[in-house]
């Protein structure tokens, strides 16, 4: 499904970026994108996956230690230790995920294991196979029977959640918490160690 969308959308994007540019092969296009990214990693890195439509994915064989900031939907199916923030976007914790981190997003779907505080401005969806140890702060919550949850639930009204002040840091001595910091890139992994097994 995604590959079909990408095929449909890629030509449109290249047209919109440089209407007068000569037609290039996919290989050349790919090389150009790579060289642009390498030349200016922080300033000119424009969101690409937004036009592609799919969420960013940290696969099940990926381990990240540090901070993750995302300006797009993000799926984590690997191991993460630190903090994850997807302001205004959806964060999915996949069934293979093992997360020891504070999470912050607009909407969070949990299928895997989390040890940390979870803060969703809109909604949290805890599936039956999920295991969550930590405190929850959200506007709406869905818990499937069979999910393991240990912690507290704070339901904040949507109006309060929309205010900037509501995006506060949830802290607990027992579990890691999120830190508020402006995202630098679309999906930035500020890690002390990111490994792929």
């Amino acid at each position, binding site marked *: 499904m995604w590959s079909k969308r990408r095929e449909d959308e890629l030509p449109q994007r290249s047209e919109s970026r440089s209407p007068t540019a000569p037609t290039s092969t996919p290989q050349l296009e790919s090389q150009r994108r790579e060289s642009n990214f390498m030349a200016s990693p922080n300033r000119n890195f424009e969101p690409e996956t937004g036009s592609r439509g799919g969420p960013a994915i940290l696969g099940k064989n990926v381990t990240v230690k540090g901070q993750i900031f995302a300006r797009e939907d993000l799926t984590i199916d690997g191991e993460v230790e630190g903090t994850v923030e997807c302001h205004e976007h959806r964060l999915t914790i996949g069934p293979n995920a093992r997360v020891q981190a504070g999470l912050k997003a607009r909407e969070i779907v949990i299928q895997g294991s989390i040890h940390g505080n979870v803060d969703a401005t809109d909604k949290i969806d*805890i599936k039956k196979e999920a295991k969550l140890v930590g405190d929850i702060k959200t506007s709406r*919550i*869905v*818990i*499937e*029977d*069979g*999910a*393991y*949850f*240990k*912690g*507290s*639930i*704070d*339901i904040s009204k949507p109006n309060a959640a929309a205010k900037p002040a509501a995006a506060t840091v949830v802290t607990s001595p*027992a579990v890691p918490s999120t830190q508020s910091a402006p995202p630098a890139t679309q999906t930035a992994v500020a890690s002390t160690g990111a490994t792929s097994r």
Partner: protein
Amino acid sequence: MRFSASRGILTRAPKSEGASTTRHSSGFEQFCTMLQNSSDLSILDMSGASQANVSFITGYGHRISSDDALGTMQTCFGADFFSNQQAASNAHRFLEQTLTFPDETFDGALVWDTLQFLIPPLLEDTVAKLLRVMRPGALLLAFFNSDEKRAQVPLYNYRIQDSKTLAQTPRGGLQRAQYFNNRVLERLFERASSLKFFLTRGAQREVIVRK
């Protein structure tokens, strides 16, 4: 999580077990008056997470905390459920893993039927810890099977339907540690300021304890 007991062993119950039934609960009705008449309360639910209970409690604007006491018991005591409770290391591990909250955190605790599966020394320590995490004046609701002849008692998942009705879904059965009559319960909660008992038609002794 679903359990059943076989020779005192705690195991998962088959999925084909009975469907949930609803019943009136005078104990919960009393508990609910506190929920309705106060705001910004902290409530502890010891049956694990459930949509119905979370929605009901947070619907009043209260905060809910979840702690699956029976799940922790299974983790700590395993197959040889009662003899493992006698080992000091296991008991210590259970107390470390359950009710890990600061003192005087909660205004109410929904303990349901979990206490009747703890043997006396550990039960007293657990109740002491439970009372410690409750604020003065806080309410505790606990259920004990009142059928004296029955060695193995049914286990339920309790889901709040409304301010006086509970849905209970069977999740197997388990041999209880002892029979709890009013006198035993009065002794168990002797540090509490008041106790109130309700007997239900389903052989349940509901107890409301005020700290």
